[in-house]
């Protein structure tokens, strides 16, 4: 029994270095992406993460076009176009009647098309798949260092700017009225998102990286009430999804990146259904009590 459990849950990581590297890289990513996703959800920027994940694609593709599968070139390119789209979309929203979400949608669709075009100029369809869906089972030292560095920097930035981010997400108008740096908080949040998505594309690919950011973040409020606990649990759920996804990928011989995101999706579905704080089952069974309190049920 113990041997079977060991073979199922730990032996792949013991036997294969690429599995250990995949676990280390994806855990580092999940630990920082989860809390970042929680702040994006609270700031009602959930779909911005998706838009930014597409926005980094042309930069990554340009890096690939000029330097091949080089972590440094693709990272620099991704950060550049991700930040450019974030600033452009924000600028257009402020200068015109277009809302920021519509402005983001326009720019990310252009970016996505441009990115795919650029990758296909030089690479094969296999290269396109690498960029879109990651190479978590083939992480090299440079990619691991990048992910670990971005993860550590993100956690430090979130810790240092915690009060600022809470104030900006809770009551941005009040923050402006007391002279707080609301714009810095907003841009900082977007910049950290871009950095994590660029690091994430090494691991999960540009299309999937946003999943490990948003799915745990959307799950946590069904389990815990306070922000500090939601931040911690988002990291934990993301890490668990990575671990489970890698095992599914290994045992069932399916691609790792979608397996990880599907595990995060399963956690979300379970939270939606079974979460004690607003989950569908909890609401179903607590409704009679609420009705009695309101005098609807005699």
């Amino acid at each position, binding site marked *: 029994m113990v041997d079977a459990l060991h073979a199922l849950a730990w032996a792949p990581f013991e036997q294969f270095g690429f599995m250990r590297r995949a676990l280390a890289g994806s855990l580092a990513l999940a630990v920082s992406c989860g809390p970042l996703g929680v702040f994006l959800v*609270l700031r009602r920027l959930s779909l911005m993460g998706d838009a930014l994940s597409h926005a980094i694609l042309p930069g990554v593709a340009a890096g690939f076009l000029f330097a091949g599968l080089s972590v440094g070139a693709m990272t620099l390119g991704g950060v550049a176009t991700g930040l450019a789209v974030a600033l452009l979309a924000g600028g257009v929203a402020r200068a015109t*009647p277009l809302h920021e979400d519509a402005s983001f949608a326009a720019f990310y669709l252009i970016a996505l098309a441009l990115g795919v075009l650029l990758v296909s100029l030089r690479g094969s369809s296999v290269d396109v798949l690498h960029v879109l869906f990651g190479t978590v089972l083939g992480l090299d030292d440079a990619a691991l260092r990048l992910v670990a560095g971005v993860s550590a920097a993100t956690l430090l930035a979130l810790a*240092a*700017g915690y*009060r*600022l981010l*809470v*104030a900006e*997400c*809770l*009551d941005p*108008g*009040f*923050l*402006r*009225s*007391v*002279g*707080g*740096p609301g714009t810095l908080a907003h841009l900082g949040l977007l910049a950290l998102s871009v950095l994590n998505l660029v690091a994430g594309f090494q691991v999960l690919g540009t299309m999937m990286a946003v999943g490990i950011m948003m799915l745990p973040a959307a799950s946590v*409020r069904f389990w815990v*009430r*306070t*922000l500090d606990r*939601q931040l911690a649990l988002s990291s934990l759920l993301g890490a668990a999804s990575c671990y489970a996804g890698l095992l599914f990928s290994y045992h069932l011989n399916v691609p790792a990146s979608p397996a990880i995101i599907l595990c995060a999706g399963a956690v979300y579905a379970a939270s939606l259904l079974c979460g004690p704080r607003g989950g569908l089952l909890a609401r179903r069974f607590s409704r009679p009590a609420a009705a009695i309190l309101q005098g609807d049920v005699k």
Partner: protein
Amino acid sequence: MPADAAIAMRDLDLGWGGRVVLRGVSGVFERGSLTAVVGPNGAGKSTLIQALAGALQPLAGSIRVAPGLESSIGWLPQASRLDRSFPVRVIDLVSLGAWRRVGAWQRLPDAERERAMQCLARVGMAERARNLIGELSGGQLQRALFARLMMQDAAVMLLDEPFAAIDEATSALLMDMVRAWHEAGRTVIAVLHDLDLVRSRFPAAVLLAGRVLAWGPPAQALAEDRLQRARAAVASW
């Protein structure tokens, strides 16, 4: 600006998304004054308060704050602006009132936390300090926002519909606090809908309807013919 002015406005145009909501506002809120801002829905009352609070940039004209008071403006926004599902405790919401003293980057000092507890106790909410804001009733949330305003310890208090959708006991408690601030020499400007309250408790009123229709003692500023003009002006838009 006049020596006794707390805030002076000149030819002020205010609006959102390129649309002018309030046009050509000029006038002075004197130091230590207690002024009600009234008008029909859509008249520009909240827009004016947000501009005075620094949360909205004027489209044209200027707002000048007396030297020394620039960083001493407290703002009570409409409670409905807050996302009630935000997972933050009441004590943390109130502690935001210490922002100008604490800033963005340091941990909240124990003394400020203690002060926040005292402010909560003043509005009868000490036992709710560790509740999430989503667990409060409308009146309790308004009390918590008053506690945050007290934390700001500002010389100029801007209140946006402070008594909307709350029970009478809470209204009476909060109105007494407004009177106490006024008697302590603070400048108080409040957006209100209850004209009887304005007539009985406020020495001055500003009537808005896309512009300033009247400014002075409520008996004159809120005369029936002026109120009808205000309603007609907003209805014609």
